[in-house]
């Protein structure tokens, strides 16, 4: 242990004896570390945005439904509680936000066209935290309360139906007795959303208006809850589960949107695979550098051994050399990654492939996200694997016979 400071100094000096080789290797490690972190932050950013967008339509981190609703989203499968009962159930719990709403498939028709949509009967005040609607960009106005008799539809849908603010459209949907309920609504606002698809698929009316229109009394089809972090919904799930009885299912968001849930998991795996692949590509160069570094000073190593340096110190010295090399490269790589990601955090416009990104479920602006967790993962993986990769050359160096090594001629 006394030897450690000496070994550090030796390793550091040896590293710079052949500065070209060291610089090339540092360059390779820098590029590798940069690529690991940069790529990871891009995919993280994309998935993060996808999940946020997804949750805003789903919406909510935790949802309560009738057990049959998810496969058969019909008004017949609504919640077994009245809205008043729901309000009482959750009145004392503090969630970041929660809302109950009517969500059923419906058909909307103008005099020109008909389309299938999802009708959301909402209480606008309670929904603010959830919705994918950009409230500041609503043309006309958004709903002003659960009793608002107007309807708000997406801009894309309005274009298809050839209608606009102030015009009337007809909504048709099934009521609990399987009669077709229909009613005319005046469009009071047009919303825009991050993804064109949302604009085509959702229409908003007041919750009470929807209940009256669909003859469903004081009931709703779902209750949704927002916790603090979409990655950790368990606390919210437990609190909601404790408040309800067995007549309903409480689902986490990734159980409802299995695609997004899977995406999140696959991406975690992808980050690790990517880091390891980059490391393996680097490892050949790293081992090569160490082998060369050992090779060209066999005689010195022999001399040190002959003078009484322990083989373990030689081993330690080579490993320290490798670790220093990696540390310098990683530091530069991390700085470079930080310097490239931060200016891009405002978003990268990739609207050239907007329709393709929509198929992925992603918007057309990519927001890279530098996560400390990923940076640490990348650095630790490189250091740990780097340690193992340098064991073999270091071991060989420490096993030389002093006499043979000293007399070795190239």
């Amino acid at each position: 242990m006394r030897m450690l400071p000496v070994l550090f100094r030796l390793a550091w000096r040896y590293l710079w004896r052949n500065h070209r080789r060291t610089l090339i290797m540092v360059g390779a490690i820098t590029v590798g570390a940069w690529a690991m972190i940069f790529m990871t932050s891009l995919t993280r950013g994309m998935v993060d945005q996808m999940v946020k967008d997804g949750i805003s339509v789903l919406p909510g981190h935790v949802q309560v439904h009738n057990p049959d609703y998810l496969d058969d989203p019909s008004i017949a499968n609504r919640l077994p509680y009245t809205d008043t009962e729901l309000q009482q159930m959750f009145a004392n719990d503090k969630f970041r936000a929660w809302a109950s709403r009517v969500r059923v498939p419906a058909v909307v028709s103008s005099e020109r066209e008909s389309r299938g949509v999802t009708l959301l009967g909402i209480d606008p005040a309670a929904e603010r935290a959830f919705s994918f609607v950009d409230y500041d960009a609503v043309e006309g106005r958004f709903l002003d309360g659960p009793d608002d008799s107007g309807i708000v539809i997406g801009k894309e849908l309005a274009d298809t139906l050839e209608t606009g603010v102030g015009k009337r459209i007809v909504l048709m949907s099934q009521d609990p007795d399987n009669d077709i309920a229909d009613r005319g609504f005046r469009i009071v606002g047009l919303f825009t959303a991050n993804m064109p698809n949302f604009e085509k698929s959702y229409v908003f009316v007041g919750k009470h208006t929807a209940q009256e229109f669909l003859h469903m009394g004081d009931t709703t089809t779902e209750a949704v809850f927002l916790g603090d972090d979409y990655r950790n919904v368990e606390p919210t799930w437990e609190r909601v589960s404790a408040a309800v009885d067995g007549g309903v299912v409480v689902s986490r968001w990734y159980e409802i949107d299995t695609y997004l849930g899977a995406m999140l998991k696959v991406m975690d795996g992808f980050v690790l695979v990517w880091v390891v692949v980059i490391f393996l590509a680097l490892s050949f160069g790293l081992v090569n550098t160490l082998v060369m570094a050992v090779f060209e000073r066999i005689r010195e190593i022999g001399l040190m051994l002959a003078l009484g340096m322990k083989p373990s110190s030689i081993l330690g010295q080579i490993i320290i050399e490798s670790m220093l090399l990696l540390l310098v490269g990683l530091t530069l790589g991390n700085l470079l990654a930080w310097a490239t990601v931060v200016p891009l955090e405002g978003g990268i416009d990739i609207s050239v492939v907007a329709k393709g990104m929509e198929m992925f479920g992603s918007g057309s602006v990519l927001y890279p996200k530098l996560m400390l967790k990923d940076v640490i993962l990348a650095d630790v993986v490189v250091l740990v694997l780097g340690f193992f990769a340098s064991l073999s050359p270091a071991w060989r160096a420490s096993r030389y016979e002093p006499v043979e090594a000293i007399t070795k001629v190239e």
Partner: protein
Amino acid sequence: MNIIFRLAWRNIWRHPRRTWLTAGAMVFSNVLLVFMISLQVGMYAMMIDNTLQLFSGHMQVQAPGYNDEQKMRQIVPDVVPLADKLRRSLGIDTVAARAWAFGLVSSEERTYGVGVFGVEPEFEPKVSNIPGLVESGRYLSDSNANEVVLGAVLARNLRVGVGDELTLLGSGRDGSFAAAILTVVGIFESGITDVDRNFAEIPLAYFQETFYMDGAGHQVVINGASLDEAKLLEPKVKALLPADEDLVVLDWDALQPGLKQMIQADMSSAFFMYFILVILVAFSVLNTQLMSVLERTHEFGVALALGLSAGRLGRLVLLETAMMGLLGLVLGVICGALVTYWVSINGFAYPGMDEMAAMFNLPDRMYPRVTLLSLSLGPSVVFLFTLLAAIYPAIRLRRLHPVEAMRAN
């Protein structure tokens, strides 16, 4: 020339460990590149096939704007005679006329809004795989019958089976009220929930009657024997369209713009990763070759003093690099091809991939496709960068001064 080759070959084996490590880096990335690019080629081909064979086909004749807006009045007039004409003139039977409307379908217990296709029962099976996916009952048979085939999820939610009746409500081409009573004759199951939940097919003639189409439809689907052949058909189809009607021919990437862009987006992120891999290999080669040049300073000095030109020595270094590169290339392609071939038979799965695959109309196992391109693209780029990496060491040779160089070491 022969002696130069022998010299280069011997030189690279002076440090077998170093050469193997450098070649190992190439083999590693070549195997990875061959596998990944083959996987991508296989995946994209499957994605395109699976998506196109559901509904869009290789090519469609439509009214301008229909693909984006799908409005009822954006019609193809006299659609059945047009499809007939195309079949006869092109000499193929993979042509089918269709109409599409949005409607409300009700059973005793449930009502859902769905997309209803009017199809030619005789020709639809030749352009779409939906008819082949009928799990219970049969596909449509008579163009005038009031029959319907619907998706499995839809049937389950409507609580109907083969033989039950449904009512269909919608609005006709002229905006008037359209209604029909249909008998369920078949239920198809594609395994893609969105498709199985949202679509029903009825015979075209009956559709035209119900929705007051007056002989019109919305699309004529044309499939070639392959996507490439479909491209060749396109100008012929254009020439066959009635001159007095405003109609367009859309190929698959116009029909499914998202598909191509998704592939592009996926490719660009993949190529970024491949590029990094190649760069790292290049660093490795640069390191090795620079070392090998520097340690031979003395030797090169002697060679220069004996009258060998620096250019020739530079070429020697490049030749050594090329040999090492070829070693990596050949081994990499062989190993990569073996690995990829094995996976192309046994399939490749990744935990969580099945849910994602379903989103893109893909099965839960991927099968890479070994093609000449997927075998050669990655390794040849690696080889190219290997050579580029040796340029700097080769140039450094020119700075050598014989006398100083001989004193080195």
